[in-house]
């Protein structure tokens, strides 16, 4: 029986020896930080044009995380590719012949990938926060202020969970193309659009990204955003449930189906 530490080591070798790991994670970091910085700089110069209500609920922390809308897509690609390339290359048969215990195989793989995504997510989160605050000038907040540290750590958790959720979906669908074809439009378009349609809003606020991103707000319902029936941790909890369900589904598919 292949021991868990051995499988973890092997998965670490697998993940660090393909270039897709590097470029997806680097683009997640660069895109998030760059877009967050750009929007922070923009808001600093246009702050006086904001409506009084928006000025009152101005959330400098949340603004510096605006880049996550795009950056999370790179995390989705990372999560999908980690699992999906096993299937597209046929490597899955070699892997499962070497680790016949499918639970050990998939959960080791996902543990390694999620740990890596979480580490990069945390780095991204702190970097984008500090850079964003520096650019916001007099409207900035500090890491010591109430709830700000929670939001910044939450930003890192959010990125890790997005990757985790994507891995679960890719394990269920057993295909990179199919998973990306569903997840990318969902996170980039469907979720964003539904969240601004009045009736659909009530459903959309339970989507993984909508619920999870509440953790990054310091001012509740900031900038005229929707009022949610759950708190920041509640929102993250909803996202955790989504990820757990996707993982469970993926595991059941892997366990039941022939490789």
């Amino acid at each position, binding site marked *: 029986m292949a021991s868990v530490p*051995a499988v973890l080591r092997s998965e670490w070798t697998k993940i660090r020896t393909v270039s897709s790991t590097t470029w997806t994670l680097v683009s997640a970091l660069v895109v998030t930080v760059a877009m967050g910085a750009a929007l922070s700089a923009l808001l600093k110069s246009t702050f006086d044009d904001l409506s009084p209500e928006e000025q009152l609920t101005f959330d400098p922390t949340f603004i510096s995380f605006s880049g996550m809308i795009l950056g999370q897509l790179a995390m989705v690609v990372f999560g999908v590719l980690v699992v999906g390339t096993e299937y597209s290359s046929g490597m899955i048969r070699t892997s*499962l012949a070497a680790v016949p215990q499918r639970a050990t195989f998939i959960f080791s793989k996902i543990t390694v990938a999620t740990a890596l995504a979480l580490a990069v997510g945390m780095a991204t989160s702190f970097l984008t926060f500090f850079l964003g605050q520096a650019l916001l000038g007099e409207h900035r907040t500090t890491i010591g202020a109430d709830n700000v540290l929670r939001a910044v750590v939450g930003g890192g958790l959010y990125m890790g969970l997005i990757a985790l959720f994507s891995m679960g979906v890719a394990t269920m669908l057993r295909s990179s193309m199919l998973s990306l074809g569903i997840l990318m439009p969902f996170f980039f378009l469907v979720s964003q659009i539904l969240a601004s349609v009045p009736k659909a809003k009530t459903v959309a606020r339970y989507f993984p990204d909508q619920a999870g991103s509440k953790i990054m707000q310091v001012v509740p319902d900031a900038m005229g955003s929707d009022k949610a029936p759950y708190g920041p941790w509640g929102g993250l909890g909803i996202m955790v449930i989504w990820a757990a369900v996707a993982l469970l589904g993926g595991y059941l598919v892997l366990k039941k189906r022939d*490789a």
Partner: protein
Amino acid sequence: MIEAVGLTKRYGAKTAVYNLSFQVRPGAVTGFLGPNGAGKSTTMRMILGLDQPTEGHVTISGRPYRQLPNAPRQVGALLDAKAVHGGRSARSHLLSLAQLSGIPARRVDEVLGVVGLQEVAKKRSKGFSLGMGQRLGIAAALLGDPQVLLFDEPVNGLDPEGILWVRNLMKQLAAEGRTVFVSSHLMSEMALTADHLIVIGRGQLLSDMSVKDFISHNSADFARVRTPQTEPQQREKLSAALTEAGGQVMSEPDGALRVTGLPLPQISDLAHSADVRLWELSPHQASLEEAYMRMTQGAVDYRSTADQKSGLMQQPPMGYLPPQQQIPEVPQQGWYAPPPPQPGQNPYAGGAPVAPAAAPQMPPTAAPADLTKPEDAR
């Protein structure tokens, strides 16, 4: 030791493998033969626990694959040469597999040397040719120095030197007392490599015996006897004498006689005592390939048809004359496999396998009755 008992795999309505039972013993190379789609790869995947059998079970050293302690150290497998992440280098690929079972990195470089890939070890496997992919797959199988080895079509895409190398590797592994199970659809390859043969067709066991037995059971040895063409009565006379002596005599289209059941010297003696002159008395042995083709004839799933090119036929270029079609003189008449020599061909040439060229001519109805069984069993 691999043991399959009543192995059955169904994909929906299609039965890929039906009630397959066999044993693969250590110390010998066991060939696993069958036409395309016969269920060879499905069986191999079931042995490795990748596919769950619908019925029956298969064990390695008495345990199902998934329950083997440290499976990679006990069983090495080459399933699919391209089952590798193309963006990963050969060495990294092997290293990730080695780490699974606590094999030191040193061993990775060792097997890379064994399969001759040390030059390209750091290159991404995306750019590998099929032959290099096969070598990488073989390296992965050898990694854990396992006692049981499975190879699915290992010589596909290899150059002649590589084929020879694989052949010797298999024999060497078996000589070390390991269990070696090699699938192929080429009988000629197996005849040179394997000690034991398991033949399947349409997912059913057709034969399970040693290569030696397989030849003697399946080959149709015969003698070709030719009497002077100018004197047909001599031919009748000899024919009667041979039949009387217990031989089976059949006429070939060109007037020669095909005799089975009598040794050559006895045929000569009989001819002498019957006062018949012989123009030819030659021994013929059906090759293993012929025996295999005959056996699997009824079980071939994918048979090619002539390309009609309907609607696509283009005008031949000016001055082009289509080659003269040679009309076969007489359709194949008997159950015997080797066709009569074509006119103009040296009848003494021998040796060259003739069956592949002849196969498409054979009507499927020529298959012996017992080979149509897979049909009935469904």
